[in-house]
């Protein structure tokens, strides 16, 4: 039985803006086992980034986070004081952000930014830290690491900066890495390199990863399990292969139908009609019902229940589809 590393129960994040309450995350629950890669997939407005910032308690006013428990290695993160959270962030759970151009401070050298992580979370002495910095840079594939430690971010390209960000994230040997759209801002050939690198490093360290992205193709490569989010709710979870080959939720089906494939020769794509609703004005009941080809009156009456399917899958829908694509 795999060891459960993270368990999120009924997480909700509200933003109280002057135009009303925006519920960015609406009672989501998911878990992550040791050594697993969970892909959280969603388009803009789905709440995927906010959910993970909420886990790390990085949401500020006017945002308010509440949950029935965010258990990391058995401890409830939502109840910890600020000092304990500081010890967890970076050391146990670290984060990789999307934009390599702004994730690094332009005024400090690469070396000092990696070292900062080591200063905060390890007991190494000065020499040990410098050695570890060089080791980390080499690990992420940067040549001449000792020299490059003295460079500044603007002297690096986008792909190299993202490697540095990965090095910083891995510096203190965290057991959970949250990567928020780590390759979206990169060119396709660099993207492939970075994804391979992340895959290799994460499995070598025995760490777990939450990979947040809008790109189903990226997640289909790296993830073991996938959770699909729409308007703040998780609509479907399951092992990667099953979610992609036979998605149960109409939204997942719609997403997959929207993606042009390299293999097939399609005449037309099969997009989802309509638009993502504004979070200020969500439809009653299932948020997807106005756009769903299978919606019935019951879909507007209340949030659909979570139905557990076999194979470790679950879906939030009154009429899940069980056939293959």
């Amino acid at each position, binding site marked *: 039985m795999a060891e459960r590393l993270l368990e999120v129960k009924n997480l909700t994040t509200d933003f109280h803006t002057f135009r009303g309450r925006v519920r960015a995350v609406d009672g989501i629950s998911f878990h992550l086992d040791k050594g697993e890669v969970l892909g959280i997939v969603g388009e803009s407005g789905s709440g995927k980034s906010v959910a993970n910032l909420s886990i790390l308690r990085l949401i500020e006013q006017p945002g308010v986070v509440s949950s029935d428990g965010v258990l990391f290695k058995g401890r409830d993160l939502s109840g910890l004081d600020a000092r304990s959270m500081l010890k967890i962030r970076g050391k146990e759970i670290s984060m990789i952000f999307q934009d390599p151009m702004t994730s690094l401070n332009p005024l400090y050298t690469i070396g000092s930014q990696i070292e900062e992580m080591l200063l905060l979370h390890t007991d190494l002495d000065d020499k040990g830290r410098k050695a570890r910095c060089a080791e980390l840079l080499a690990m992420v594939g940067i040549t001449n690491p000792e020299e490059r430690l003295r460079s500044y971010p603007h002297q690096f390209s986008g792909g190299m900066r993202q490697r540095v960000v990965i090095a910083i994230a891995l510096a203190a040997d965290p057991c959970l890495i949250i990567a928020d759209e780590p390759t979206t801002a990169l060119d396709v050939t660099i993207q492939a390199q970075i994804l391979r690198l992340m895959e290799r490093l994460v499995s070598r360290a025995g760490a777990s990863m939450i990979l947040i992205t809008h790109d189903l193709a990226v997640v289909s490569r790296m993830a073991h399990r996938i959770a699909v989010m729409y308007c703040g709710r998780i609509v479907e979870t399951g092992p990667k292969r099953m979610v992609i080959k036979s998605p149960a939720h109409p939204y997942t089906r719609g997403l997959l139908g929207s993606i042009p494939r390299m293999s097939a020769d399609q005449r037309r794509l099969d997009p989802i*009609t*309509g638009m993502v609703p*504004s979070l200020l004005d969500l439809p009653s009941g299932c948020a997807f019902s*106005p756009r769903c080809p299978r919606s019935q009156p019951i879909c507007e009456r209340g949030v659909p229940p979570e139905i557990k399917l076999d194979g470790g899958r679950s879906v939030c829908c009154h009429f899940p589809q069980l056939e293959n694509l």
Partner: protein
Amino acid sequence: MPSRAETRGPSNPSMLSRIAASEFTRDFLSNPSAVAGAIIIVFALLVVLIGPHVVPQNPYDLKEINLADAYKPPIGFAGSSLKFPLGTDNQGRDILSSLVYGCRISLFIGIVGVLISCVVGTTLGLVSGYYGGKLDSLIMRIADIELSFPSILIALFMMSVFGRGIDKLLIALTAVSWVVYARTVRGDTLGVKAKEYVEAARVIGLPDRIILVRHVLPNVTTSIIVLSTLNVGGFILAEATLSFLGVGVPVTRPSLGLLVKNGFDVLFSGYWWVAVFPGLFIMVLIFGINLLGDFLKDELNPRLK
């Protein structure tokens, strides 16, 4: 046939209702200094508009003043009179009435001056930023040279050459204030020029003048508004300074600044009210303008973009 996209919010609201319901109004009403500033400005405008009909005297009409009334103190002090609530000056002119008439002159100079320098500076800034090249270099070098002198000195010099007069004053003040408009607008123009909607206008084939007026200018107005609001205060103060130094408005149509100068000469003889009240009035007026200007500066920031 693609499906209809859904509507969001009220449909086609009028400009007024959009402003009323907007975040701008809400922030304004919840900001006490902004409201205070607005109240002061509205008060000053009321003074300008209805003041002359309310106050007892037109101090520049020689028929109405009487030398015998000279140097009467304000109410509450020995020898005062209800007819002159804030006292009189050396010629028997009522201070309160002088404030009202002086305020008109000062605000006139402030607003008209800002308008002119805004138009001149914005035009130069637009042209400079949009076309670039040698024209841009020329305009910016002139601006740089001007900025290396204290502007009040340049105005002082120009006024001593021209002589006194409101029109000459406006010319001199415009000549030194266009620079900040030109530079700011040029910077904004450079940013707007790179936007795709300007490229789209060029791809359509629209001539430059239409692009500048319809596409660039409306998108640089936030900076202009902020600058102008703060500049009104600056203009009033500059004019007051020049008048104080003796080269501003003519003696027959004194502004608040000139009133202060007149009072300054007798300040230490004990007739303090002649200088203090105009001085206080200028201070409160400019303070109000700055409060509102600060609010606009923060509010109109890129948050709206």
